[in-house]
């Protein structure tokens, strides 16, 4: 009997942690550009010793974030990641990074400062015009991995995302703070400001909370009989 209960318990645990078919919900969508700072070798992207910085606007945000995109401009800054390893594969590089963060700021369109990329970042406008206003969300980014075609900058990145702070942290139930982010990159765009590496378009998902319900040992046993 104990074996059956133990088996059931382990099975329940396995179902709870299995990531494969977990439902997701879109949290926000972002568009911007990236650059490296520090940038020990300006001719190379993802070199050891460099720091990855992405910044841009967040045109679409969803619950549990509470937002007003008409009155406010939402911006993001991704930073803190530095390469730990680079694997060349054909014309591509697989670049793995140390953990970093993504922050989202809310700034009044009428009273705040409009986001401005400027050129050759960091500069007087960037990232400062992306970090003014209220910091509504902070998330950690781990397992950040960039795959990029060295010929044209076309590629993608992804990371594990966890909500860790910001003025709206309380909107996120404890069992709904984990998720992931991914984005496409391109070096082919003609609108990339001087000094930036790629154009970025990405989105971040939250894992749906794991549903639980109360039961009794009697019911568990009954189900196994």
């Amino acid at each position, binding site marked *: 009997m104990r074996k059956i209960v133990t088996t059931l318990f382990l099975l329940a645990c396995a179902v709870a942690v299995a990531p494969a078919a977990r439902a997701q919900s879109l949290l926000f*969508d972002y568009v911007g550009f990236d650059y490296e700072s520090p940038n020990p070798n300006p001719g190379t992207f993802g070199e050891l010793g460099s720091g990855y910085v992405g910044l841009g*606007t967040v*045109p679409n945000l969803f619950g549990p974030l509470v937002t007003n995109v008409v009155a406010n401009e939402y911006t993001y800054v991704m930073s803190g990641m530095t390469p730990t390893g680079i694997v060349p594969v054909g014309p591509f590089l697989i670049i793995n990074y140390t953990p970093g963060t993504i922050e989202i700021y809310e700034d009044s369109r009428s009273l705040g400062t409009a986001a401005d990329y400027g050129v050759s970042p960091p500069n007087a406008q960037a990232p400062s015009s992306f970090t003014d206003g209220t910091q509504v969300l902070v998330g950690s980014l781990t397992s950040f991995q960039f795959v990029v075609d060295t010929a044209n900058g076309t590629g993608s990145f992804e990371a594990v995302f966890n909500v860790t702070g910001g003025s709206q942290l309380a909107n996120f139930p404890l069992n709904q703070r984990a998720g992931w982010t*991914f984005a496409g990159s391109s070096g082919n765009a003609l609108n990339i*400001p001087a000094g930036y590496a790629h154009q970025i378009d990405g989105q971040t998902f939250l894992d749906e909370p794991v549903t639980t319900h109360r039961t009794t040992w009697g019911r568990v046993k009954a189900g196994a009989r």
Partner: protein
Amino acid sequence: MTPRALATTAKGTTIMKRWTTLAMCAAMLLVSAPQSHAAAGPVIDWDPAYMWQPGGAFNNLPAGGIQRMVGTVSGFGAPLAFLNANIPAREYTFVADSMVSLGTVTFGPPSTQIYQTDYTGGVIRLYEDVSPDAVFAAFPPNPQVPSTFEDGGAPLLVGYFTRYTVTTNNFTAFQTGSIEGDINWVGGTLLPYFQTIGGAVCPGLFTGGATWNTAPNVGIPGYLFRHDGKIDLQCPTPTSTSTWGRLKQIYR
């Protein structure tokens, strides 16, 4: 000193030539330097688009296979910023089809393989519909897909892909890659907005991340990829004709 250099040592000639060289260099810089304008946002942004290709898999899109996509627009930027994608009474959708695979090329060892598939052909059309009904129904084509994405009348824009590339891999934890292409716009009621002063039409750059993650609310059965992307206009840097006289005036 070379004979050519010696020939320029007479004082007047040297100054004149220096002026000319300086002006020429300045003109070249003016023509080729990137404009210091604020970075333009995407002209069309979507979230999401979904692609399907009968017989295809994320790691093998066989030659001859035809990829199609449908998508819903989430935002517009200049020169289409007058369109509002977020009013409930209206929806903006797009459909692309006829992208023919040239076969998948695999790079790397078994543990870190990257798959790149180039396509030829392909046409994309943007629609406006005053009776929103687009639905990403599973297993396309079906009664809703692509029909609910291409109703609403004449397309606002029509363009041909001149490049379309799908890049995937077998090692990313969340199954992510990219899909990118170039578009030559050829028609639609809004085509004039993409024309430069000289009349040339700015091409489009189709970019974004793609995922073949099948988690609920990310993937949809019957589709190969979810794409989060946008289109940017690739307008040439503006130039204007001038005379040497005008150019010299600038530096006096």
